[in-house]
């Protein structure tokens, strides 16, 4: 044998499984090194992972397990072990490793929606933090090409670049799309048993030649086809695209469509009578546009419920779907109604541990009432209620509870009347004598048991144990034990009806945070992002902390996406990198809006005839510009303007949430220009600058500290000329105020239970830069009480007072003859006064019509004191969305605090008396929407004020012309608005 052949064979042997390693088997390991020397896993950890040790004989099994352990960290794509004889004897091992890369930010540029960027990124299936390979990148590219083709981009090209960060092993992937021209719809070829021509399909679907083809357009077209068939009761119709052929020369896509209209579906009911409209409503096949057994079963249940509510408590509905005959499939429902009943009595006895209300809450059965004319009963519901009562008792340790029922038909001799008697045999309550916790080495027993339900002395139930299990595992997950496990067993206790509970916890290995890796933002300051992240290196890895950080970052309002992940999720590592990848939202937002208001604010600016206002119409346009993330610190600047015949308004604000790093503080600067005419008496102009610090104490409680400095003036005044200087002179008001809001409502838009309190204290004084001096107080207390599941009693009381004080201020005005008039006043300027009345205040008045009025013209003057009380009964009218209210409002605005009176009537023949409470009764309708209920209220004021008005114009008033008239505010007021009144 030649030497060369021997050597070649030896080289081949080097690759032979096991054989080559055998040469070194048992040789002492002289040295272990890694190539490259810089490894992603710390050296100490690598040493722990290696079963082959320096100085020990080389063992093939140990070497294999070492490779497995290194690979299992998830940090490596490949591991090989090289061996060489060491100069001093033994073997030198080199672990040759290739690092893994992990998916970072995936971006797409150049795409033309549809498909959107988000859809394209989702198509790649490259998930943050997961290992990235070239194959995955290519698979992502192919998936994008498929999605682009589905949206008509058949000539699209996609290439991608990667940007690696060797410090973090993260790899960002940027796909660049060149979509080319979008293709158009071409020929439509039909197959199956179509009853439509290609042209008719084209007309129905909108797939006209020349229209661009996109996934949504194809989908919409198919939906329209289905709608067409549904309309013709062909609920089993099938329309599907069997092929799409791109014709490059014409840049069009020929579509092959299979249509099988299927039979018409009809529904019939026998054994009972129901209108076909009701039948179609109860059997949801028409609503869903398909027929299947589940929907027919649901239809049968709906029909049964309908008849049971109608008193046929034993109603049974069977159904079957007949085979097709003459192109029609008949879904037949057979009703067996039985005799008609009403449940007139439901007695519960034997219950000592739970009161009747607690038990009734869990029951479906109902005695006849307004909502259930004949009550609600069926044997199925009875069985379900018995189970619910038993479960309630079981959950509280009454393991031997028995529920007996007795049904009396033709109760007390009345045919059809039924009475149900439920007797509960509670039996003894099983209590926990002792709770033993084992296996918890990291979290103390005291700390764990403080959260648990099943502790010594408490009742024993499996429900509570299940709840404890969730609490314990939840706590462990939060503390970085993702593999924690829980087992329990129960044993008889020392006495009768006592048990001992054993909880065994297997904590598993604790995981820690190695580093927090953020990315995806370049305009936002790093400190702004880091401040919101509550995940810290070396601390236990808590999913709750990661989710909380994600929520906080979203709450900044400057990111459109915040993705979180643990890098290398499948890797067997103790310390993990936490990834937070963000996408910054658009910084500029422009909004343009339009609308109109209708209300009693109409009337000529010179005509004084209608101080209560005529019904008016005011169109409105608005423009809004918002800049997010100012200075990269999540500050927001905005400009809102509104223009209407009633109001011209410009508001610029700068908002700094989490001011100075404090989560509960929000600082706001604002400047306002406002000219409004929402009070008939005058037009107010306001120039204001304000600084506000909002301090959220806890979830329900918030303080607002505010300083506002404004210049208020009025024009178009409709009051006695002698009052004009005193009330209408432009005044600078500096108001320092503090407001406390306590909001414990369950739903601020439509509260059903809870409480809402506000205390607003303000001071305008010389020291605050104010020309007028007055303290201002407004208090509000609202409560909401749920009388039944859907009936709510709501009430609110509001009181306010301003007391002018200090030196008189000088008011100079020019008289009609050119001379200067000098008057002195300390009164509160007109626009600062309290006005009330309208949809969100006293509904017995139209907007801002309550309180004192000008004694000559009858226009409202506002006042320095306010009292308002409203009570509402809110109840359902139809379904979930339509409700009604009955309300009573009473209150008024008073000239001074000492004028507040609860008198019921205006003094006889005294048209200057406004110091009494105006009462109004009314009803309203509410239609529930996602942004709160739309409402219409009609109020009848029982005692609206009479007053002296003026027949004439402003000029006539100034020249002593015109005539004085006696007027009265209308008894009827209507209000149309959004949101509940309070």
């Amino acid at each position: 044998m030649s030497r060369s052949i021997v050597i070649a064979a030896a080289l081949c042997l080097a690759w032979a499984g096991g054989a080559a390693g055998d040469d070194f088997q048992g040789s002492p390991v002289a040295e272990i090194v890694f190539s490259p020397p810089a490894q992603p896993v710390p050296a100490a950890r690598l040493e722990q992972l290696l079963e082959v040790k320096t100085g020990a004989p080389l063992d093939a099994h140990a070497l294999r397990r070492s490779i497995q352990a290194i690979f299992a960290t998830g940090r490596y794509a490949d591991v090989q072990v090289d061996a060489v004889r060491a100069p001093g004897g033994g073997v030198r091992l080199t672990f040759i490793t290739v690092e893994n890369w992990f998916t970072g930010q995936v971006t797409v540029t150049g795409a033309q929606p549809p498909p959107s960027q988000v859809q394209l990124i989702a198509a790649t299936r490259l998930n943050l933090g997961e290992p990235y390979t070239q194959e995955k990148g290519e698979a992502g590219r192919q998936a994008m090409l498929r999605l682009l083709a589905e949206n008509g981009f058949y000539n699209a090209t996609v290439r991608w670049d990667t940007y690696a960060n060797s410090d973090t092993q993260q790899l960002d992937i940027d796909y660049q799309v060149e979509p080319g021209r979008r293709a158009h719809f071409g020929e439509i070829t039909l197959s199956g048993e179509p009853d439509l021509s290609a042209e008719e399909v084209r007309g129905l679907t909108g797939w006209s030649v020349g229209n661009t083809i996109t996934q949504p357009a194809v989908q919409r077209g198919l939906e329209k086809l289905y709608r067409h068939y549904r309309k013709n009761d062909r609920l089993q119709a099938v329309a599907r695209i069997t092929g799409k052929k791109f014709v490059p020369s014409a840049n069009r896509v020929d579509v092959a469509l299979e249509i099988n209209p299927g039979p018409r579906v009809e529904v019939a009911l026998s054994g009972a009578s129901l209108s076909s409209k009701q039948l179609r409503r109860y059997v949801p096949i028409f609503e869903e546009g398909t027929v299947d057994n589940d929907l027919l079963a649901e239809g049968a249940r709906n029909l049964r419920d309908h008849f049971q509510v109608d008193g046929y408590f034993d109603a049974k509905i069977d159904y079957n779907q007949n085979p097709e005959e003459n192109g029609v499939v008949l879904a037949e429902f057979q009703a067996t109604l039985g005799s008609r009943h009403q449940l007139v009595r439901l007695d519960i006895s034997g219950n000592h541990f739970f009161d009747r209300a607690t038990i009734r809450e869990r029951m479906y059965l109902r005695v006849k009432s307004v909502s259930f004319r004949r009550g609600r009963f069926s044997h199925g519901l009875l069985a379900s209620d018995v189970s619910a009562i038993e479960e309630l008792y079981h959950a509280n340790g009454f393991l031997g509870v028995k529920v007996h029922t007795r049904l009396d038909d033709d109760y007390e001799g009345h045919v059809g009347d039924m009475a149900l008697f439920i007797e509960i045999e509670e039996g003894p309550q099983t209590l926990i004598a002792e709770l033993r916790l084992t296996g918890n080495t990291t979290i103390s027993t005291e700390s764990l048991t403080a959260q648990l339900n099943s502790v010594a002395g408490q009742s024993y139930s499996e429900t509570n144990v299940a709840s404890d299990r969730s609490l314990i595992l939840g706590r462990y997950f939060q503390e970085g034990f993702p593999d924690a496990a829980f087992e329990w067993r129960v044993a008889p206790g020392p006495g009768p009806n006592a048990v001992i509970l054993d909880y065994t916890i297997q904590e598993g290995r604790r995981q820690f945070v190695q580093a927090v890796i953020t990315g995806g933002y370049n305009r936002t300051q790093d400190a702004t992002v880091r401040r919101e992240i509550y995940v810290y290196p070396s601390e236990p890895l808590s999913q709750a902390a990661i989710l909380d950080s994600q929520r906080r970052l979203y709450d900044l309002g400057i990111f459109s996406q915040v993705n979180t992940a643990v890098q290398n999720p499948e890797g067997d590592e103790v310390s993990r990198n936490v990834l937070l990848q963000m996408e910054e939202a658009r910084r500029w937002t422009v909004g343009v809006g339009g609308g109109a208001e209708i209300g009693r604010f109409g009337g000529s600016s010179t005509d004084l005839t209608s101080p209560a206002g005529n019904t008016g119409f005011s169109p409105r346009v608005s423009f809004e510009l918002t800049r997010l993330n100012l200075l990269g610190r999540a500050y927001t600047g905005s400009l809102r303007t509104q223009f209407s015949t009633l109001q011209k308004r410009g508001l610029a604000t700068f908002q700094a949430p989490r001011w100075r790093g404090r989560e509960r503080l929000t600082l706001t600067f604002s400047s306002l220009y406002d000219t409004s005419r929402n009070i008939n008496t005058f037009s107010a102009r306001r120039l204001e600058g304000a600084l506000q610090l909002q301090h959220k104490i806890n979830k329900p409680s918030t303080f607002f500290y505010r300083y506002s400095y404004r210049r208020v003036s009025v024009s178009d005044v409709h009051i006695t000329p002698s009052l004009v200087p005193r009330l209408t002179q432009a005044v600078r008001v500096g108001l320092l105020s503090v407001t406390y809001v306590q909001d414990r409502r369950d739903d601020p838009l439509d509260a059903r239970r809870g409480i809402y309190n506000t205390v607003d204290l303000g001071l305008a004084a010389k020291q605050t830069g104010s020309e007028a001096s007055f303290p201002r107080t407004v208090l509000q207390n609202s409560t909401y009480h749920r009388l039944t599941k859907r009936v709510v009693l709501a009430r609110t009381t509001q009181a306010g007072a301003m007391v002018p004080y200090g030196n008189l201020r000088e008011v100079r005005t020019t008289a009609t003859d050119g001379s200067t008039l000098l008057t002195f006043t300390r009164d509160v300027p007109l626009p600062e006064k309290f006005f009330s009345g309208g949809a969100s205040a006293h509904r017995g008045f139209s907007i801002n019509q309550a309180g004192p009025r000008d004694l000559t013209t009858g226009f409202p003057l506002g006042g320095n004191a306010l009292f308002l009380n409203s009570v509402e009964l809110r109840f359902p009218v139809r379904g979930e969305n339509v409700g009604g209210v009955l309300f009573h409002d009473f209150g008024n605005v008073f000239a001074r605090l000492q004028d507040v009176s609860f008198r019921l009537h205006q003094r006889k023949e005294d048209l200057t008396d406004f110091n009494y409470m105006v009462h109004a009764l009314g009803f309203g309708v509410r239609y529930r929407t996602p942004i709160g209920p739309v409402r219409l209220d009609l109020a009848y004021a029982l005692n609206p004020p009479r007053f002296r008005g003026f027949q004439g114009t402003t000029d006539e008033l100034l020249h002593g012309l015109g005539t004085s008239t006696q007027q009265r505010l209308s008894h009827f007021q209507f209000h149309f608005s959004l949101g509940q009144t309070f």
Partner: protein
Amino acid sequence: MRKLLLIGLLLAGGSRAPGEIIDRIVVVVGRQIITQSDLALEARLEAFFRNTPPPELRLGTPEAVTLRERLIRQRLVEQDMRQSTFPPAEPTLILEWLARMRPAGADPSRYGLAEDDLEDYARRQIDVERFIDQRFKPGLQIPDADIAAYYESTLLPELQRRGLSERPTLEQARGQIEAVLLEERVNQSLDQWLIEARSRAGVREMETPEP
């Protein structure tokens, strides 16, 4: 010329690594790996239980490819077993299996094997069998029509081809036919499942030198 070839081969070997690769990852199956030494061990175990001489396995040879595919399937099954917390085989089962399969007089040390290796091999074989039985057999029913069709179209022609005059009735053959068809269906299900599991887990074959 021979000298040049020799130098070339030596240089090729020298540029690869300072010494020789004594173990490496050959295939990645999801989160698990198959190493070169896994293949060698498996080859030795098979040889032991077949009572054939210890092999010299080279990567890339048809034998190595077959072994590799078998280990890939085994890893896929093991992954699924782990996820479904499939209980491991009882030690008594392992001992019974070994007593049944161990070739008489065979010496594991001759194959570089320890008792632990044999037990581990036995455990894997038993687990895979149990897994297949439990996962794919329950619920499988062979319709009478299929049994009759097999009897008519496969069994009778086969008996005729073999010249056997004694033919069992359908009822007599029913049990055996059912067992055969059941096995076929299980294999079909298993094959389908393996295709899906392979795609789900992601199998990455590493570059290995030519044999």
